[in-house]
């Protein structure tokens, strides 16, 4: 798919992310909007072998969002891909919803593992990649880590094991691990809490081929995923430099927006910014775009509650 088309899908997803987190009244907009371009490229770049009708298909590709707090981003691409109706999105975090605040494998078909207790997803991804290799499945495993997340010790246990596990009969070259390097964690900038640098040489020292890309450039993401797929004998690691809160200028690169829901008025402004419409042109824009108009009036109604 053309980068421009992926970008358009990602923009729609970002609008939904803001919408659903605002309806929920809590959640993590910053990290959802930093990771969404990676997820959109996976799900809509003609790459992922998944079938929403058969979420338990043995040979499906697996996506494990280890930074589970960014699950609103995953929900938006899953809805768009047909795993569940888009109308469910605004049930996020509500009692009885399959869209739990962090991923719940049993609640929602298509979620591969419970994550969100940080540091655990990559170990599961290693196990899945190994199990698939052992039966010569063509399926691939993708694991997305957060940057603050890799302060967890379990990640480094998994990092040490990844290039060694299954060798020599079953090397895990069916595994691509991507770091959503948005430079911010809950409390502050990562450099102020516990700096991860030098990140490239660390992963290389653990035996991983490492690529470094702009995680918002669809051509670069696509190329890196291709190269990871072509790498034989080892799993691959991609450091994707991203911007926390990407797409909404008022939220970008601001630790405040790690784990805070926008108020309805803030959400409406954020959606306007996402769509690149000036305040002056907003009413005219809404008059022509009925879908956005519906989302905005729904949010405005929320304000009055």
């Amino acid at each position, binding site marked *: 798919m053309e980068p421009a088309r992926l970008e358009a899908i990602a923009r729609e997803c970002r609008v939904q992310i803001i919408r659903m987190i605002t309806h929920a009244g809590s959640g993590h907009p910053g990290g959802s909007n930093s990771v969404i371009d990676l997820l959109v490229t996976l799900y809509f770049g003609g790459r992922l072998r998944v079938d929403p009708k058969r979420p338990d298909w043995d040979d499906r590709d697996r996506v494990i969002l280890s930074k589970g707090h960014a699950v609103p981003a995953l929900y938006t691409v899953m809805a768009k891909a047909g795993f569940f109706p888009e109308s469910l999105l605004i049930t996020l975090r509500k009692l009885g919803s399959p869209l739990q605040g962090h991923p*719940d494998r*049993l609640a929602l078909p298509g979620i591969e*593992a*419970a994550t969100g207790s940080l540091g655990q997803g990559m*170990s599961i991804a290693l196990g899945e*990649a*190994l199990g698939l290799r052992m039966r010569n*499945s063509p399926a691939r495993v993708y694991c997305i880590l957060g940057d603050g997340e890799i302060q967890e010790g*379990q990640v480094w246990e998994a990092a040490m094991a990844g290039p060694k596990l299954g060798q020599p009969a*079953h090397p895990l070259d069916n595994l691509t691990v991507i770091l959503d390097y948005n430079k911010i964690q809950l409390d502050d900038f990562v450099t102020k809490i516990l700096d991860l640098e030098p990140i490239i040489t660390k992963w290389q020292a653990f035996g991983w081929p490492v690529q470094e890309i702009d995680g918002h450039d669809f051509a670069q993401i696509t190329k890196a995923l291709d190269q990871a797929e072509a790498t034989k004998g080892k799993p691959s690691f991609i450091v994707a430099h991203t911007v926390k809160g990407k797409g909404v200028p008022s939220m970008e690169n601001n630790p405040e927006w790690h784990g805070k829901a926008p108020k309805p008025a803030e959400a409406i402004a954020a959606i306007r910014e996402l769509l690149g419409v000036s305040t002056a042109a907003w009413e005219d824009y809404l008059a022509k775009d009925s879908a956005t108009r519906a989302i905005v009036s729904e949010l405005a109604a929320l304000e009055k509650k």
Partner: protein
Amino acid sequence: MPAKASRAAFGEALLELGATDPRIVTLDADLSKSTMTAAFAKKFPDRAFNLGIAEQNMIGVAAGLALTGKIPFAASFACFIIGRFETIRISVAYTAANVKLVGTHSGIAIGEDGYSQMGLEDIACIRALPNIPIIQPADELETRQVIAFAVQHQGPLYLRLTRQNLEAVSPAGYRFQLGKWQKLRDGGHVTIVGSGGTVYNALEAARLLAGDGIEADVLNAASIKPLDEEMLVASARRTGHVVTAEDHNVNGGLGGAVAETLGETLPTPVRRLGVQGFGESGDPKGLYAKHGLDPGGIAASVRKFLGK
């Protein structure tokens, strides 16, 4: 059958079952010689994975393997398995991954290595997770039954095994069933519930008590979670006095489970025998005597409990 450690019976059973079921794989964290999975690793090197001294990753990798249809047995000392509780909680329990967690070297019976190597809080921790049964076999025959059951059972399990040899207590032809206990002795004056390493001692205690005219029901609680409420309540109704004996911290284990169940269904006086405080280095027999888990200690507690 001669006495055998349940870890040894586990290793042998796995070897046999692994020959016919290619889904079975083992994961270790540099203790395969102690957990007794080493023989499986030797026979099936492509299906045995030693992750090094990294138990969290081992448990997570096991979960991933389970999600692709393998039946992983992830083994280490009980204390090191339960030390990775958060990974068990999310990657295994909440994910509902079909992982068989195997904690060997449970309890003070490991002896000389001392407290840091003793699994003494594992039952309490796993009891709090909604979907992981806890099984502790009492002898070789039961261990073999339990391992075969674990392979068939769809869903996570926690198996609690011993380092020390266990005397045979199960009747010939015994079949393990989840949630079902074995009544090994029929007495009627008092109920003694043991599990794993304390079952034989409970039987021996019952023999001592019989000399004083006290006839004990002895129940083997291999299935700690779920427990056998029917058998427990029936025995308690008849005896009116229940004593639990376990090689685990006295709080939160088998005794806690029994007391909670009886408290809600048939309030009955209960005495919980178990490990008080931390464990320590020493010979296993001496440690059991110190904590009142040897036959004499259990019998003495029963007499005191009954006021005799």
